[in-house]
Structures are given as structure tokens and as C-alpha cells.
């Protein structure tokens, strides 16, 4: 029989875990599978975790590792770390305009952010984990998390600007990250 503690754990975390999985997989079915898989692993070995206060970090970390295990794209992650300096505050739609956008469109913009930045950025926006927790989860220094957040936000602003332009039919300048990276 599934314990009350497990049910409570599922109730508290399955939705944010699904949102995190959705940003990784870009697919609702795969995100559901990944979320399920994470809780299966908990059911199998999570009882070994002595400090239940760390359950949230454990679940997010396990989900991310399971995603990586399925993807095996470590080479790409390494390559993306070598990009140049962050563009300072790229143009983004006004907050009022973003507020009026459909949530699905905003999630699509988030999914356009490179994976290496998207992972900490999504965790940051879910607000469940601090930057220190995120650093521990990704096994990178705190400064690296801050740097990835900064780059991720820059990419997100650009993506939102493209989405907003697309939604309103505006012509956008040929000045995207992709155009710069692959001249």
C-alpha cells in the first residue's frame, strides 16, 4: 500500500516536476513519463534518504539525471559553455505585454532557450529551489548558476520578443542569437 507520506510527496511536487520536465522534453507525454519515472525511483529507493527535508531537491535532481540518461548530450552542453559574453539586456516585450501572452506561448519561448541555460532558468522560475540548491543539483559552482541564469534570461527575452512579434504580425530585425552564432 502506498504510504500517506508518499501521497503527500506526490501531491506537493508532481506539478512543479511536470513543469520542469516539460521545459526539458518539450513534449507533454514525455514530461508525464519522466515525472512518473522519477516517482517510481523514489518508491524504489527514496526511503533510503534519511533527511526527508531534502526530498524536493532529490526529486528534481533525479528527474534531471533521468532526462540526461535518456538524452546523453553532454558534448553539446560543454560546447555551449564556450559562448561569448552575455548580451546586456536584449530588447524584450514590456511586462504588461508578456502578462497578456498565453502561458503556452511563454513556455514555448522558454523551451527555445539553450538547454544548458534552460535547466537552471526553469528551476529559478519554478521558485522551488534557491540558486545554491540549483548549483548543488547541477554540480556546478554558484557563479556558474548565476552566469547561466543571466545568459538564459537574455535568450528568453529574445525568444519572447520573437513570439510577441509573431503574435502581433510585426517585422522583426534579423538580429537573433542564432544569426549571430552561425553567420
Amino acid at each position, binding site marked *: 500500500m502506498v504510504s500517506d507520506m508518499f501521497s503527500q510527496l506526490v501531491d506537493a511536487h508532481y506539478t512543479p516536476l511536470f513543469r520542469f520536465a516539460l521545459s526539458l522534453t518539450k513534449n507533454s507525454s514525455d514530461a508525464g513519463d519522466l515525472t512518473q519515472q522519477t516517482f517510481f525511483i523514489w518508491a524504489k529507493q527514496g526511503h533510503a534518504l534519511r533527511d526527508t527535508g531534502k526530498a524536493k531537491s532529490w526529486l528534481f535532481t533525479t528527474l534531471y539525471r533521468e532526462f540526461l540518461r535518456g538524452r546523453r548530450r553532454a558534448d553539446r552542453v560543454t560546447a555551449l559553455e564556450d559562448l561569448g559574453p552575455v548580451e546586456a539586456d536584449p530588447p524584450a516585450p514590456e511586462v504588461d505585454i508578456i502578462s497578456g501572452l498565453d502561458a503556452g506561448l511563454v513556455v514555448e519561448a522558454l523551451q527555445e532557450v539553450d538547454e544548458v541555460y534552460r535547466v537552471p532558468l526553469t528551476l529559478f522560475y519554478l521558485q522551488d529551489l534557491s540558486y545554491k540548491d540549483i548549483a548543488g543539483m547541477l554540480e556546478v559552482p554558484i557563479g556558474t548558476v*548565476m552566469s547561466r541564469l543571466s545568459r538564459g534570461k537574455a535568450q528568453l527575452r529574445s525568444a519572447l520578443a520573437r513570439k510577441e512579434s509573431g503574435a502581433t504580425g510585426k517585422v522583426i530585425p534579423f538580429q537573433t542569437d542564432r544569426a549571430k552564432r552561425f553567420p
Partner: protein
Amino acid sequence: MNTQQAKFILQGYRPDGADAGDATFCDALEQARHDQVLGDWFAREQSFDAVISAKLSEVQAPAGLREAILAGARVTASGTPRRIWWRQPAWLATAASLAVIGTVALALWPKQAVADNALTEFALADARHSETHGGHGRETGALQAMLSQPSTRLGDQLPVDFAALHNAGCRTVSLGEREVLEVCFKRNGAWFHCYIAQRGDFPSLAATTVPALLDRNGASLASWSDPAHLYVVVSETGRTALEKLL
């Protein structure tokens, strides 16, 4: 700390104020209070972050996901030994006797050899939440197409390369420490769920190429094996629908 350094730190400050007690942000926050330009930038940054967080929080998990997680965990937990009382000699002797009786019974009645109990229970529970299935890769498409062919009979040799299907993105679920693939297919207007496990992961299972049937809680299940794989097909449209595939 110059303005750029302060911005670098402050952009990691969560918009719900959860980091208010974190000493890392104290100096930068203090600087933002005294520097009008930095303060304005921080206010805009927090507004931007807050609206993105709010949008993300509007995303809802699919209906049925919670129930699927709980059902899956129930099966996983039932497959995990929790007590060792049965390791006592008296119980082992009893178990050995039952095993002999069971082996004889199976030999006399081979069609009752149904797949490993944990696997069948898992398959039945998982099939009840088919709305969460998906994520099949290209290689899965060929297998799915063959299973959907009216000429394919359950028990036929299927073109299964477990590793290739797994790597191609076939839906994979964990049962204990064993991986099980799942492919949905449609036949005669009804959906079926085919679970594929590696025989080496279930060594106690008797080999049978003749599908054995089982009915449980309104669902029907057929299981058989080939030298490398164990197959379980679940139908929720009744035993008759499943028997048409035999």
C-alpha cells in the same frame, strides 16, 4: 561592488522574496536601495521574473498523471521485499514444497503460465492510465505497425531489438531495477498496450510461446515469451477483443 556585479547577483534573486534571508544578496540589495538606476533596473527585473513565474505556474499537469504515479508506486512497492521472515528454514522448506507442487502443476497445465506477477500487476495498472502513454520513437513505429496488422497473431515472433527500441525513444518504465518497454497499438477499433521485458530480467518465468490469458478487474491480459523477451498485452475492451488477436 560595481553596478554590473550587483546586477549579476540580483538577477538570481527569486521574485517571491524567498531569498530575502540569504546573505549573498544583502550588499547588492542595499546598493539597489541607494542607487536609483540600479533600483529601477532591479524593479523591472523582478517584474519580468514574476510574470514569467506566474505564466509557468499556469501550466497544469495532465489529468490522470497523479493517479498513474500512485498506481505505479503501489506496484513498485509491492515488488520490493520488506521483511525477511520467509528466510527462516521452516518457511523455506514450505516454500520449496510449494515450488515442487507448482512446477508439477505448471508442467501438467502449461497454458496457465502467466507472466511474473509484479509485471502483470504493473501492466494492468499502467494500462489503466493510457492517457499518460506516449513518446514513441521511429523504430517503435515499425513494431507498432506490425502489431496493428490484422495478420499478426499474439505469440508470433516480433521484430524486437530491446536496446534499439529503448534508444529510439520507446516509452520505457522501470519495474524494480528492470526496464520494460511499452507500445500502444490499435486493432479492430480497440487500443491494446504491449509491454516488453527482457527474459533475463525475469529468470523465474517459465518459457511459453503460447499466450496465456488472465482477467483482472475488467481488463484482460495475454502473456508469452520468445528466447529473448517476455511480452504482456493488456486490453481494457474485454477478453473477446484480446482473443481475436490470438
